[in-house]
Structures are given as structure tokens and as C-alpha cells.
């Protein structure tokens, strides 16, 4: 994967590239992504993968943290329900993460910037098309600056 540095100055330029942080479970989605690579599938390089043991390991605060650090989109991907390597990790994730997304949405953080998916180790193709799709969406949504850039109290009317 090629990586291009994206700076604030470039964000309006033609070479702006969304920054997508992906939390992948080790056993399914990470392996699926690996398979995509081994299958020499093309998919956008905007995605940056954090490998975790399980989607159940994804603390919702990682998502917030990623946005805080300037991610334009966050993806959490795990095993399909029933397939969890740890038997129920993805079931826990399936309760917490969507609830967290609701909370973010309620507070005005665009829930479209937070994706959740199930990709199995065999779904290399699903992985590449998923990444292509969400990257496309990230482009459409544009850079997400409201949250990371709000450290200084703004004067509001």
C-alpha cells in the first residue's frame, strides 16, 4: 500500500485522501484483509488497520479517540455472528458499538463516519469491495475536522 501524507492544507486539494482507521479482529476480518492482499485484490490505501484479538476488544473510546486524532472515518470489523473465535466477542461488540454510534449521532457526530462490518477470513473480496465502498463514502463526506479541531472554545452566537 502506498501512503500519502494528508495535511490540513491539502484537504481541499485534489490529493486529499480520507483517513480511515479500521479496527479488525485478528481471526476473521484481519485474515480476510490478508486474503485480499494475497489474492492481489486492489483496494484504496486510505484505510489503516489496527489489529485486535477481537471486535469485542474494541473499546468505544477507541473510536472517539480516532476521531479526536483526526480520523475521517472509523471501521470496526469482526467475525460474522456465530463465528467468533472467542465465541461471543462479536456479540458484545454488536451491542456496544451501535449504541455508541447512536450516542455519537445524538451528540452531532455524523454516524456515517463510524462503520461496523462482519468480514470473515474467507471474504477477501468482501473486504476489498467494502473498503472501496466506504472510502468512496469518506470522500463524499469530506474531511472530519469539527471534532478534532474544537479544542479552543469557539465564539458562538
Amino acid at each position, binding site marked *: 500500500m502506498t501512503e500519502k501524507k494528508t495535511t490540513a492544507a491539502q484537504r481541499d486539494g485534489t490529493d486529499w485522501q480520507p483517513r480511515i482507521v479500521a479496527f479488525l479482529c485478528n481471526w476473521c476480518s484481519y485474515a480476510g484483509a490478508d486474503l485480499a492482499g494475497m489474492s492481489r485484490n486492489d483496494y484504496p490505501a486510505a484505510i489503516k488497520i489496527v489489529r485486535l484479538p477481537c471486535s469485542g476488544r474494541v473499546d*468505544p*473510546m477507541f473510536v*472517539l*479517540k480516532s476521531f*479526536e486524532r483526526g480520523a475521517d472515518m472509523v471501521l470496526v470489523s469482526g467475525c460474522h*455472528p*456465530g463465528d467468533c473465535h472467542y465465541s*461471543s466477542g462479536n*456479540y*458484545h461488540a*454488536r*451491542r*456496544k458499538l*451501535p*449504541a*455508541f*454510534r*447512536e*450516542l*455519537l*449521532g*445524538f*451528540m*452531532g*457526530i*455524523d*454516524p456515517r463516519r463510524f*462503520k*461496523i*462490518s*462482519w468480514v470473515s477470513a474467507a471474504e477477501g473480496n468482501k473486504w476489498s469491495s*467494502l473498503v472501496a465502498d*466506504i472510502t468512496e463514502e469518506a470522500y463524499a463526506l469530506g474531511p472530519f475536522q*469539527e*471534532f*478534532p479541531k*474544537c*479544542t*479552543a*472554545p*469557539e465564539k*458562538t452566537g
Partner: protein
Amino acid sequence: MHRTGENRMNATPVEESLREAAAGAIADGTVGVVIGYGHEAGSDVATPLFARTPEQARGLVFDATCVGNLAIYLPKPEVRALGRTGLVVKGCDLRAVNVLLREHVIEREDVFLIGVRCAGVCEPPLHKCTVCPVHDPSGCDVTLGDSVEQPTADASRANALVAEMEAKSIEERWEFWKRQMTKCVRCYACRQVCPLCYCKRCIVEKTTPQWVETSPHLRGNLAWNVVRAFHLTGRCVGCGECERVCPVDIPLGLLNQKMAGLMEQWFDFQSGLAPDEQAPFTTWDPNDPEEGIL
């Protein structure tokens, strides 16, 4: 602290029986202390009263000013050091006690619950009272007061504020909360008053890694309140103390109500109705909703 309870002349029948029950429990050694409400000059709401003698129990009151949730004292070591705790609880307070029981913060035998049936406090009634599902605290050691007709909780009202917020666009919401959170001074009064914020070390105080930026700028304030709301998801019993004590009047209850509503909607769960319930984030079901998952 100067207690004024004894000065109050005409005690209501509920108060009489409350004082009697508390004095009796203290006298026969059932409890080391009864925590209830008293009147303190200068305060328009009832203040906590720690009765350690039968005489002190005479100062206990129960009226519309008894807004506060006294369950906050239960986990505190200094309170526990006084011996078995007698606690005066309204139905809403009992829900907090139930969560504490379910989270093993206290054990049932450590507390002596004096339940008081309550139709609602304050005039006009607080939001929490209009949506309260537990006017009649059950499972207490003693339950006092006339039975209160259990009004059906007004769901539409409960969700009205949330719905109002959700009707707004993302940008409007963002602007709303940005305005609110900007006010936050990170005094953590919301945390201090919450009966369920009993952590020995709050996540904000964990620095490796630094989960929440501690400086009171908007991003940190937002993060703190997101964390707070999420840590209370599936747990918050809606006592409203956080919002009540917020010095800058951030509508914190709105966030809690949003999440409580979500839990009820997704998992048919209301927190604190029983001490042996299973919190929604500690369990799962293969048929849980799959909405919004790719």
C-alpha cells in the same frame, strides 16, 4: 451541620412512622446510622440527615423537598465505617440501590432499606417523577406511607426531549452540544453526585493512556461527557442528580435519557428495577439487532 428537623412542629403521619422506624432500628442496633432527609435552614431542598441516635432520628422529614438520591452514600467507606447503613429510599432511589447490588458494590445485608411510597417530589413535579415507574419501593426492609396509585409512566413525555433533539439535523445537534459542552468547567459535580459513579479511580484519572483530555476545552469536555454517558448506559436510573447539580446547567439528563431509551428500545431493558437483573452490556443474544452493520 446544623439540623433543624426537630424544630419542625407538625410532623406528617409518614414522618411519624419514619422517625419511629428509624429510631427503633437505631435503638435495637439493627443499624449504625440512618441516612434520611432533614431540613436545613437556607436550603430549599431537604438535606441528608445522618441519624446515629434515636433522638437524631426525630429530625427525619419526608416531603416534596426530598429530591436527592441518598444512595450515593452507600459505597462510601466512611459511611460503611458507621456500621450497617439504614437508608431512606424513594422508589427512584431504590433503583440506584438495585444497581449497586447488582454490581456487587454493596451487599443486601449491609443495608437496611426504609422505603417511603412517593407520588413525586417538587412542585411542579420533576421530570423524573412524571416518568417514574417505581412509586412504591418493593423489596425494602420497611415500607412506609400511603399506597400511591401507580401512574403509567408517560413514555411520550419521557422521550419528548430526546425526540426533539433527534428531530434536529446533525449539524444542529453538533452546534447544540458544542454550545453546551463549551460551558463545562470540568468540576465533575455530575460524577460526584451520581450514585453509580463509585469507581475507585475514574477513567478520567487514568493517564496511561490518557483516555480523556483533562483540560477544559471543548474536545476534552465532549470526550468526558461521552464517556460519562456511555459508562452509564444500561445503568443510569434517571435520578437526575447530575443535571440538578451541574453548575453550568448542561442538560446531562438528556444524554442519559437518550441511552436509557435506547436500551429499552433495543433490549427491552430498564435499569434498577431488580437487584438480580443482567445489564445489557454484560450479556448478548444471538438475535440482537444487526442494524447498520455492513
